[in-house]
């Protein structure tokens, strides 16, 4: 009896410990974003008030409206009352923010990069994981070694290359290099996934009279969908956050800036408007965070499959 009881207590103690550990990790991982969210919901200027409020007593979407360039007359009147700024000037500033453009640009860039790098790297991954040819390891290492080269090394000639192609200040100048920034990693992730499919698949398909391209398209690709998917998310995230190239080739033109480049500009231009900056941060992260959360299982599985293979 007493043994059983102590066992139950021990179980409860373990459960308590587990909950405490989970909460501790959650606090570590989520506090910064939580505080940014809370700042973004404060009225303009309230972010500097001491004592700091962990959560605004009167949450408002004012900052989001400002960042997205949606503004109402009455709001401007009250905001500019007693200050030197005229409502019209304030309206012009707010209208010029318009964070929708970088969000749209980033969406275009990241989607194209994810799709095209997936196409290219699924081909190369198929060759590496499932076809017989000489110099296989060397090919893989050739691709991987490329990916080790820092962008700081390649940025100057890439900038020159884009200039001579006349692509500066266009989204293409970000899309094309970013595709290949992601190809080596995607190839690796997908190849690891392909390698796990049984090798008789091809033989069976060949018996049924499939041609190599058909085997690739109709047999292998559908079976490896989760691996492809996680590689796609990886490429999407990578190009969503890519900053050095984006800020170099967009050359400060708001119309072609992606989120990271616009974000930096924004934070320089409005360095004291932390409710606005916070709102912009939340807007930049919301989509990718949501995407990762929804597909979290696949993403982690794809990533760990690659890691275990090492």
């Amino acid at each position: 009896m007493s043994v059983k009881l102590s066992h139950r207590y021990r179980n409860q103690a373990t459960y308590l410990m587990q909950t405490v550990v989970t909460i501790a990790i959650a606090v570590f991982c989520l506090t910064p974003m939580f505080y940014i969210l809370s700042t973004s919901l404060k009225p303009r200027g309230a972010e500097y008030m001491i004592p700091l409020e962990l959560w605004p007593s009167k949450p408002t979407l004012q900052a989001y409206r400002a960042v997205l360039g949606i503004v109402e007359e009455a709001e401007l009147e009250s905001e500019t009352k007693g200050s030197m700024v005229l409502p019209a000037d304030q309206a012009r500033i707010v209208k010029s923010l318009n964070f929708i453009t970088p969000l749209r640009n980033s969406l275009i860039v990241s989607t194209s990069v994810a799709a095209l790098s997936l196409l290219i790297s699924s081909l190369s991954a198929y060759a590496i994981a499932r076809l017989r040819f000489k110099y296989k390891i060397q090919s893989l290492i050739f691709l991987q070694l490329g990916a080790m080269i820092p962008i700081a090394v390649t940025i100057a000639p890439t900038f020159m290359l884009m200039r001579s192609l006349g692509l500066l200040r266009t989204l293409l100048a970000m899309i094309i290099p970013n595709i290949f920034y992601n190809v080596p990693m995607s190839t690796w992730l997908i190849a690891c996934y392909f390698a796990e499919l049984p090798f008789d698949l091809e033989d069976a398909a060949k018996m049924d009279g499939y041609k190599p391209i058909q085997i690739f398209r109709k047999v292998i690709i559908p079976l490896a969908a989760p691996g492809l998917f996680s590689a796609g998310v990886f490429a999407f995230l990578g190009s969503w956050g890519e900053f050095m190239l984006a800020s170099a080739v967009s050359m400060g033109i708001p119309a072609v800036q992606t989120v990271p480049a616009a974000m930096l500009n924004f934070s320089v231009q409005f360095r004291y408007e932390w409710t606005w900056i916070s709102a912009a941060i939340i807007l930049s992260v919301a989509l990718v965070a949501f995407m990762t959360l929804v597909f979290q299982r696949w993403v982690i599985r794809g990533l760990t499959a690659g890691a275990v293979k090492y």
Partner: protein
Amino acid sequence: MPRQHKFSLAGAIMKIRLREPTIAFLFLLPAFIGVIVFYYYQIVQTGIYSLHNLQHTADWQTQPFVWFKNYATVFRSTYFWQSLRFTVYFTVMATALELAVGLGMAMATFWVSRWLGGILRAIIVMPWVIPPIINAMIWRWLFHADVGLFGYILVSLGLADKPPLFLTEPVLAVHSVIFADVWKNSSIMAIFLLGGLAAIPADIYDAAKVDGARSWFRFRKVTLPMLLPTILVALLFRGIDALRTFDLIYGLTGGGPGTVTETLSSFAYKYYFTYGKFGLGSAYAIVVFAIIVGLAVIYLSRIRRNLRFKE
């Protein structure tokens, strides 16, 4: 009447019988071309730039060839040695701490009950999702000198009289940058290690348990050795990434105070786009590359060992 042959390109291509190596070559071609154009060719170009006295908008052909003068300038400048020291310190500290935190998080996720583990997984990936430059913004606000959350917490706990100058006092700035990096990248470390943990066969644990091994002993003698290959690869992966850190520095401290937190990459970028000295910046970049190649070779020889692709 003779049968009409309608020519179709797709049909013709499908009819060609290709040998497997040829197919492999064709499949690899797009990736190879891209990687050559955007990585290898660029390195050669950067190498050429680094031998010229190249200014921002000029073509390198028209600029004076200066042999290794740019490298001499680089190696003679105290800024270079300082930023090299910082880059190495940053890399070592950040990677080590990320390993510790990531391992802790991975072990915890593995240890807690099933549904808590599911929640933890979702929470742990979150910092990884945040782009580096956005991460820099976040910490600029949390480390704010007057109203930053961190300073505020320290003051309200009575640990400091006034908020510390996280980003403007040299020693503090260095460690604030490291902290911001650790916060974001412990996640990816944990994800990698989770994969490694999941690959350890369960019966090894059970055997150890039956033998009456204590949990610390089990961790040291069973988990850690089995996890070692994954740890090594994760360390190299992160180390290579940390050596070329740029975004975080650029957004968080801008290399300041002074040039205390300037990494080699951020210096190269500054030479390029702030001072317009492409030649000198290229010399910096080549030095970064040389350092990274060393690590990359170890890393690649490491992953090569376990490749189990169809030969």
